[in-house]
């Protein structure tokens, strides 16, 4: 199918307003939140319903045209990077909240719905949607699902995968399936939904998503504690976890991050080598007692200042400072590279020291802001694109940082995904067999490899028969069992 015919076909499905094909307009979609990679797609389509998505995908399948789904385009691993000569399916017009079932604590939404809208929709009834990535005011539920987004409160409440209960999915062959029970637990069959969430848009497109709603806690207490350095702050983190407390969140920021955040949004943070934000929520009596314990632990670890949020406004200010951290780097550096790695919590101290050594070796500043409770680091490598070679150096340093995470038993990514950005590192974490077996799943969902191709895996495998011996089972051979 030539370009003209493809545009016409898509216009027949979506109407003239639903197809973008002028080069200048296409440029808007050339990258997602990770701007190092840019590809202009053949065309962009804007479906308004599952039926639209189904027809678009069906066309792509019939014609062998690759496609990529995109939500709000805030992803940080290039997961929504378009494919040249492929179709970019932008889901931002699918923004309806379809059903609220408070009795069963579920909400059904279209993929383009913004994360924060879900909580807003049910706030008056005393409910909210727990996963809260820093991007929550712009990022979409479909994108969150694809990336298995985390957030600052996932220590207690889990990740997107723990809150997506069902999905209507357009598979890469254009068929529609419903996976996960939605309102119903333990649907019989394989845990296809668990495999689908976090598959970075490579297994299909979710067109309807059932989410779990969480009852708002009775009490929330938040404090900010200042420490001389990250080591002392890390000691406090270990102390809190060691006491058997499961805080809703424990976040850490180092001196450089604090400086940047102050410049950008001026939350009035104390001057310190490291700051912790600790939040507890739950029943009043439990929270009150454990909050005192947290304060004690911070004091034992030489906190120079402890500030307790007096009201929702002050709490919001603490979080505003934390959630602004990435963007605030612009106030202290021309350019910065956001890294995302995970280490076992007990390795935090050692790993931070090694990051600091690497920073010295490379002569580039690294700001650290992270989800300390679950060992998810976000080192921000600061550089200047105008200095020749510095961007490459920054990327190399960022790479070295995740290798350090791996050496200490961690992971390449805690919440941003592998996408385009880290697929080259996958062999450092997984063997060829590991990746080949993962790709068996890919082949079951997307045998022609047209759905977000080229992401996650460094070497896509063909979906033919697996190498190795294949024997028909005797029962099958004897005609005793039905055709498999």
């Amino acid at each position, binding site marked *: 199918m030539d370009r003209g015919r493809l545009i016409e076909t898509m216009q027949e499905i979506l109407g003239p307003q639903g197809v973008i094909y002028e080069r200048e307009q296409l440029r808007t979609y050339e990258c997602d939140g990770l701007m190092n990679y840019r590809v202009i797609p053949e065309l962009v389509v804007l479906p308004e319903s599952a039926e639209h998505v189904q027809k678009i995908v069906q066309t792509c399948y019939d014609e062998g045209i690759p496609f990529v789904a995109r939500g709000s385009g805030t992803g940080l691993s290039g997961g929504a990077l378009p494919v040249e000569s492929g179709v970019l399916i932008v889901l931002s017009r699918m923004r309806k909240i379809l059903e609220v*079932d*408070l*009795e069963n604590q*579920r909400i059904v939404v279209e993929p383009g719905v913004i994360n924060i809208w879900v909580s807003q929709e049910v706030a008056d009834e005393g409910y909210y949607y727990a996963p809260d990535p820093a991007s929550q005011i712009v990022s979409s539920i479909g994108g969150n699902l694809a990336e298995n987004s985390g957030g600052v409160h996932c220590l207690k409440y889990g990740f997107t995968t723990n809150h997506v209960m069902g999905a209507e999915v357009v*598979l890469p062959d254009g068929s*529609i*399936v*419903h*996976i996960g*029970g*939605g309102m*119903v637990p*333990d*649907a*019989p*069959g*394989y*845990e*296809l939904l*668990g*495999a689908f*969430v976090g*598959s970075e848009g490579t297994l299909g497109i979710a067109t309807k998503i059932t989410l779990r709603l969480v009852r*708002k*806690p009775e009490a929330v207490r938040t404090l900010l504690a200042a420490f001389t350095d990250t080591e002392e702050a890390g000691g406090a983190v*270990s102390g809190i976890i060691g006491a*058997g407390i*499961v805080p809703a969140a424990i976040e850490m920021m180092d001196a450089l991050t604090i400086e940047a955040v102050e410049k950008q949004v001026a939350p009035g943070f104390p001057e310190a080598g490291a700051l912790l934000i600790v939040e507890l929520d*739950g*029943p*009043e*009596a*439990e929270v009150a007692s*454990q909050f005192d314990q947290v304060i004690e632990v911070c004091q034992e670890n030489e906190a120079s200042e402890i500030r307790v949020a007096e009201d929702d406004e002050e709490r919001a200010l603490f979080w505003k400072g934390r959630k602004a951290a990435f963007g605030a780097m612009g106030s202290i550096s021309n350019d910065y590279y956001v890294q995302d790695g995970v*280490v*076992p*919590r007990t390795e935090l101290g050692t790993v931070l020291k090694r990051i600091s050594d690497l920073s010295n070796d490379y002569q580039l500043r690294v700001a650290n802001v992270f989800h300390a409770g679950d*060992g998810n680091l976000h080192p921000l490598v600061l550089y200047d694109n105008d200095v020749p070679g510095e961007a490459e150096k920054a990327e190399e340093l960022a790479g070295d940082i995740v290798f350090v995470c791996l050496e200490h038993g*961690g*992971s*390449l*990514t805690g*919440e941003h*995904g*592998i996408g385009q950005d880290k697929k080259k590192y*996958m062999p450092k974490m*997984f063997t060829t*067999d590991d990746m*080949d*077996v*993962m790709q068996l*799943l890919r082949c*079951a969902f997307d045998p022609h490899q047209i759905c977000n191709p080229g992401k996650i895996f460094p070497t896509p495998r063909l979906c033919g028969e*697996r190498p190795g*011996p294949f024997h*028909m*089972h005797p*029962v*099958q051979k004897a005609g005793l*069992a039905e055709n498999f």
Partner: protein
Amino acid sequence: MQTKSVVAEDLGGIVGKENVREATAEDTIDGVEPSLVVEPGSVEEIGAVMKLASREGLAVSPRGGGTKAGWGAPPRALDLVLSMARMDEITEHVPGDQIVRTQSGVKFGALQEKLAEANQMLALDPPEKDATVGGVVAANSSGPRRYKYGTVRDLIIGITVVLADGTIAKAGGKVVKNVAGYDLSKLFTGSFGTLGVIADANFRLHPRPEAVRTVAVEVESPQAARDAAQAIVHSQVEATAVELHWGEETKLVSVLLESIPDGIGAKEEAASFLLKSFGKERTLDEEADDLRPPSTDSAGYEVDIKIGAPPAELTSVLDSILNAAERRGATVSMTGHAGSGVTYAGLSGEEDDLVGLVEEVREIRTRSGGSVIVRRAPASFKDKVDVWGPAGDYLGLTRRVKEKFDPGYFMNPGRFIGGI
């Protein structure tokens, strides 16, 4: 396929002669007797055994504690039982990271004991006492605490599997937060041994609660049971479990509460206050195990079923079972995770009556998006009723997944949904 003795010898060459034996009546699954039982001692040995088994075209059934061997549909073929009994090492427990790595043959109880030494737990409470870690994962077994902590899929963070062709692969890792690669740990959860052998698994852990209490209320009607459960679910109590017991004598909704010593009193008070308008309060022991009164233990019944439905539909779930049972003169006793939408019913009566009962209840539930799975039943019952019931529109995809992982249908053939 070569003769049994030649295969046994080849297997002995891999795992040692002493770890291969002829199967006995005890190894039978739903009346189908395997030829051999093999006990590999390492993931590499499992790989070599599977390679041999697929070369010989053997149907393989992985087995942990054997506590759920009667679950699922009867095997279409069964040659080799792969016992995980020797894979019983807890590989790594790091209390500070709240994670554990364990081989799949480790007994679930032994694992919990070990974790308790560090005041931690794997927050799963499957009812099968002698289950292994691998069995719990493969059957997606859960208990009352799933209301707060979720099920296996929510707590498993890494896995090592061996495919039918002997390929060894891992996914996930030993950190709780991790989105690198596909989440095969979840895919293998509840896969019933049909995708491959689970060799080991990693989990996130939780601190053991310092204070535990159970409050309960006697209920007289399905509606009262449903309303009591809903009252807790929609409150800010943060209960750990909301359980239903519907025996001939005792009908209870009980709520398991966990907290710290300073917090448990207030929680108990709040839960009691909510429950008391639905019936007479009952005091139970603190231990969660006592959540199940003996009268609701369905072990003595002939057929066990598991019903999945939206939690708010509990009244309809109970009514439909009770009505169907009454009309057929069947006896029924139920327990359930009322906060999570899971109900278990133990049924006894004439076989044909029970067949009709299960089919009737299944039809009602399926119509509203729910499910009815037969968990334990005589083989003759399983011949008449599909254990799994109808799958949704995802059955084709399910089959494609199976055929990628195990194209020869060597792994537990016939026991899973849709004849998989």
